[in-house]
């Protein structure tokens, strides 16, 4: 007899906080993920060197801006 699957609900962050001052983290995350990030005239420098994820599994922070 087949058993019912266990249902798990997961919420992902809303796109934009109602408070402009608090848009930073969430919107930053969403814009970078979905938007036209690749055609910024600048580019995402986190992945230049070192590589994307360090030996601890953390996102690399990239070089210091100049």
């Amino acid at each position, binding site marked *: 007899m087949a058993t019912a699957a266990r249902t798990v609900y997961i919420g992902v962050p809303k796109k934009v906080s109602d408070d402009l001052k608090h848009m930073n983290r969430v919107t930053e995350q969403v814009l970078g993920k979905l938007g036209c990030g690749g055609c910024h005239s600048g580019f*995402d420098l986190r992945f230049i060197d070192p590589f994307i994820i360090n030996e601890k599994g953390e996102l690399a922070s990239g070089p210091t801006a*100049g």
Partner: protein
Amino acid sequence: MTMPLPDLGVGVVYIPGIGKLLEDDGLPIDVIEIEPQTLWRRRGERYVPDDEIIGHVSALPQRKLVHGVGCPVGGSVGHEEQQVSLFADAIRTFDAPWASEHLSFNRAFGEDGVPFNAGFLLPPLQTRAGAAAAAVMARSLASRLPVPFAVETGVNYLRPRPGEMSDGAFVRAVAEGADCGILLDLHNVWANERNGRQTVREFLDEIPPDRVWEVHVAGGFEYAGYWLDAHSGVMPEALLELAAEVVPKLPNVHAIIFEMVPQALPRTDVAILRRQVETLRTIWTTRGTRVERRPANVEASASTDDVSPREWQDTLGALAIGRQVSSALADTLSADPAVPVFRKLVWQVRAGMIVDNFTFTSRLLMLSRGEEFLRGLFDDFFARVPPEFFGSSESDTFAGYVRDQQIDEPVLADLLAYEHAAMRVQLEGGTQVIRTRHDPNALVAALSEGQIPAGVEEDDFEIVVS
């Protein structure tokens, strides 16, 4: 070329978090420049403006400018009708008094005649034919926009080519051919000089100063022997000194804009940025105060038209994404040390977009299989599929590719399915329902600690992502 444009002052490119910079940190900003494509979402074949974010941007009290990053005018692949239409809409929405685009190209034709994305803004062919072609594209785009149009002076990591026009003469030829304004990106021109191209002063002697409506400044960093136009933080002091020297000589400049990518904001020293913005405001007050009336130096406008703009575009575009090309031009370009840098940058941009969306999937592969494996996976994927402009599109395709590889990792399929569903929810709203053998919460919890998930309970799960 004098246009009746308003003086807007000193501004920044719109980046998420700018509200905090302006309100909490008190950055004295008069104008915000918007790259409209960053406010669109890709849904199938359509671009859909994100009205929620556009509403927030519109609510900022500063005047707005619109600076395109998806319809550059340095190539021959026609602009996408949707993009042009939405570009014009953005200008109207934000009531921008003028608009600008890059004097670069980002698409090319493959050997099969099908256009592909080059994944990066690349320099056009600097010959008279190249200038004429760019002028046609600029005129075409400008004719569709409701406000005056300016071309932005580009960064060019390539070595100067024998017989090509000088950088300044090329910009002059395009701007005069299109009868448009110039967005003088001082950081680009400065980077070009540092990287062995024309000096800034020679460049400025060759462009018509009365056509410069806007100035861009930015930060960058050194990589592989090149100063990169990375928009990676505060400006080098030398660039500010250059701006102080140049802006007084520009009779019609109406805005000075500081550019920075969102990823640089968290590590930017706001005190330094504020001081630099205040310096820009001082420089702004000197605009047009030392205009030199001088004959234009146009001696460098001759060129050797040994290749066509189309051949240049298609060859450099192909090389930038790692395709093999056999031709004399390809051989010449391949010998330029900038070509591997273009490839690296395209690679990094693509990998960055994927890792942003599939952070835990990437982390799992990194931890369980190692860096070389993940690099190899990206290498293989990038070799098969040309770049997409949008991170969501790139990630959609990558998800299908990873599934097809049938990598023997116990939780990989579930993790990828979860992250893919979460991405779709962020993109489209609503709810995604997937079936997995593991609870993604447990997988993410382990990976957040830098641990490969082990001993995670197996069952039939229905995951509702909303």
